[in-house]
């Protein structure tokens, strides 16, 4: 998802390269009938960008998952949520 978001940001002239976009990802695994199953994945993005880019970045974040192959492949089985934290420059 980070790759999809980064590409979508840069298509709108928001630099997301060289460490400006990072993500912390957590997967919650539960046990069902003695089998480990990934139930939830939480992605927290951290983007360093000027304040003037905030609105565009937030709009891109709201829709980017629809273009992510892995999200679209997994989301019916795993609850995948994302959050965008912007560090204004």
């Amino acid at each position, binding site marked *: 998802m980070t790759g999809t978001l980064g590409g979508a940001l840069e298509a709108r002239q928001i630099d997301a390269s060289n460490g400006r976009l990072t993500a912390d990802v957590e*997967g919650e695994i539960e046990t069902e009938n003695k089998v*480990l199953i990934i139930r939830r994945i939480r992605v927290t993005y951290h983007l360093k960008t000027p304040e003037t880019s905030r609105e565009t970045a937030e709009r891109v974040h709201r829709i980017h998952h629809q273009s992510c192959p892995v999200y679209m492949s997994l989301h019916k089985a795993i609850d995948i949520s994302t959050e965008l934290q912007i560090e204004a420059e």
Partner: protein
Amino acid sequence: MKDVTYLSKIRIERLQGPDRLAYLPAEKEPVRFGVHGPVAEHYGLTADRLPEPHATTLDYVVAAAGG
């Protein structure tokens, strides 16, 4: 039935116990699957039976989703 756009072909080599190598397209080196921490405990693997902890396939799925 739609035509397949891309066929991902990966070879898995089991080493021993939970340790496996995955040979991925376009990568020179394989990645290693294993167990660690709570997952190792889930499978009843104590420290003395688990000489080298490695990321699990579950970790790789989480990483791939976030990636």
